[in-house]
């Protein structure tokens, strides 16, 4: 059943993202070949070519920011509209477990978040047309290795993925908690997000305090951490994210299962 839910969730969301990604990449290519940045820098007066260049740059940045904004908007909208709006009447009468609904939404939202991020990075690389890109990249990798060590690549990826999951599930939890209110559900959801965010900030701070003498001692001493220290730091936070994501997930699941009240 989870597979089928994933299929429909991808179908429902791909129709927004794929055209957006295509448009962004096309504009990156246009900007690369028109080279509007160079044209604007080299021309002294405002001619048609410069105006077109400016428009092309503006369109590119709009698309880039639009892609990132869209990722967040669709993530919220799919949960709110498809589960708690009128479409929820169908979703919640399918013979599917509640956690499968949440997981399918979460996995697809994570997929688009990561893809949007990669597409934006890709579009920047295309547009920037840096000479000797590969050399510069390998230089970057070297610097990275100095700070994080080889294990760092893995640790950072794990941390990033868990952090994405953490924020998405926190949004789900906030919307679900907000939906418990009889009136002003959207405002309540936003309020609940602030409450949860504040609460987890405090939890993180306490966490750092708790391990201030061991894992996080470099923070207190204000010195440059070794790769081992920094990886340990990230792994600890990844673990914390995983635990808090589980808490939020369970909260969301329990409310949707035991206290659902669709209008």
């Amino acid at each position: 059943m989870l597979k089928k839910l994933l299929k429909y969730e991808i179908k429902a969301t791909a129709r927004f993202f794929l055209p957006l990604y295509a448009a962004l990449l096309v504009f990156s290519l246009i900007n690369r070949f028109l080279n509007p940045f160079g044209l604007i820098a080299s021309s002294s007066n405002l001619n048609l070519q410069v105006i077109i260049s400016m428009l092309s740059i503006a369109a590119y940045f709009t698309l880039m920011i639009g892609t990132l904004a869209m990722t967040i908007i669709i993530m919220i909208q799919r949960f709110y509209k498809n589960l708690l709006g009128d479409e929820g009447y169908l979703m919640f009468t399918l013979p599917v477990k509640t956690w499968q609904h949440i997981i399918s939404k979460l996995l697809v939202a994570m997929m688009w978040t990561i893809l949007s991020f990669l597409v934006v990075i890709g579009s920047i690389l295309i547009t920037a047309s840096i000479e000797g890109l590969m050399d510069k990249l390998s230089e970057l990798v070297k610097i990275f290795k100095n700070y994080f060590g080889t294990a760092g690549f893995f640790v950072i990826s794990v941390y990033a993925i868990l952090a994405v999951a953490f924020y998405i599930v926190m949004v789900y939890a906030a919307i679900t908690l907000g939906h418990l209110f009889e009136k002003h559900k959207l405002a309540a959801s936003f309020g609940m997000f602030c409450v949860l965010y504040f609460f987890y900030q405090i939890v993180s701070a306490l966490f750092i305090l708790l391990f201030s003498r061991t894992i996080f001692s470099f923070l207190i001493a204000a010195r440059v951490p070794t790769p081992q220290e920094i990886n340990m730091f990230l792994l600890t936070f990844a673990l914390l994210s995983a635990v808090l994501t589980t808490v939020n997930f369970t909260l969301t699941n329990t409310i949707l299962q035991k206290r659902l009240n669709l209008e």
Partner: protein
Amino acid sequence: MNNILECRNLTKIFGTKKTLDNVTLSIPRGRIVGLLGPNGSGKTTFIKLCNQLLTPTSGEILIEGKRPGIETKKIVSYLPEKNYLSDWMKVSDIIGLFKDFYDDFNAEKAYDMLKSLGIKPNDRLKSMSKGTKEKVQLILVMSREAKLYLLDEPIGGVDPAARDYILDTILRNYNENATIILSTHLISDIEKILDEVIFIKEGRIVLTKTVDEIREETGKSVDSLFREVFKC
């Protein structure tokens, strides 16, 4: 166990308003039951509780002896009073979805009914009128071979000509062991298909009788009895 649906002391409170008040009911298999009452009497609330879209304040519902959950969703076919279809989908997409999730869904039947109502499978729901969307929903719901159909205002939004077709469809597409509960306030239109009626008023059941009993005991039609009971 001969009853497909039972509920005991079912109460649902919204804020301070008791929408359902201590409802106890047994509905046997193989019946067409009209859940009749004026607007705001608790019909929709009752049906939503059976589908686990609402959580009871107290009391319980048993469908084939089970509380609403995955197992009951497999055997209950529900027509909400809202449009629950995603606008961007084509009719054929939504048929695919029903086929994917419900083992008892008969796609062939659905396509047949679409054809006789002149709805094209490739049409997008976005381009349809409200009434056409309601027809699509009813077709989907009646194309399942379910044990219990819960139809909330199935004929509320469609024209009288389509009403006849829909009632006909309902009668033709359900087997003898299945039960249909349908809520409506358009009683005269559906009276002829009902076996039993439940009158509901301000969240309380005020009468449960078979249509034959009503005719024998009062000599009245369901419609005129309704008008009497719910006189304003």
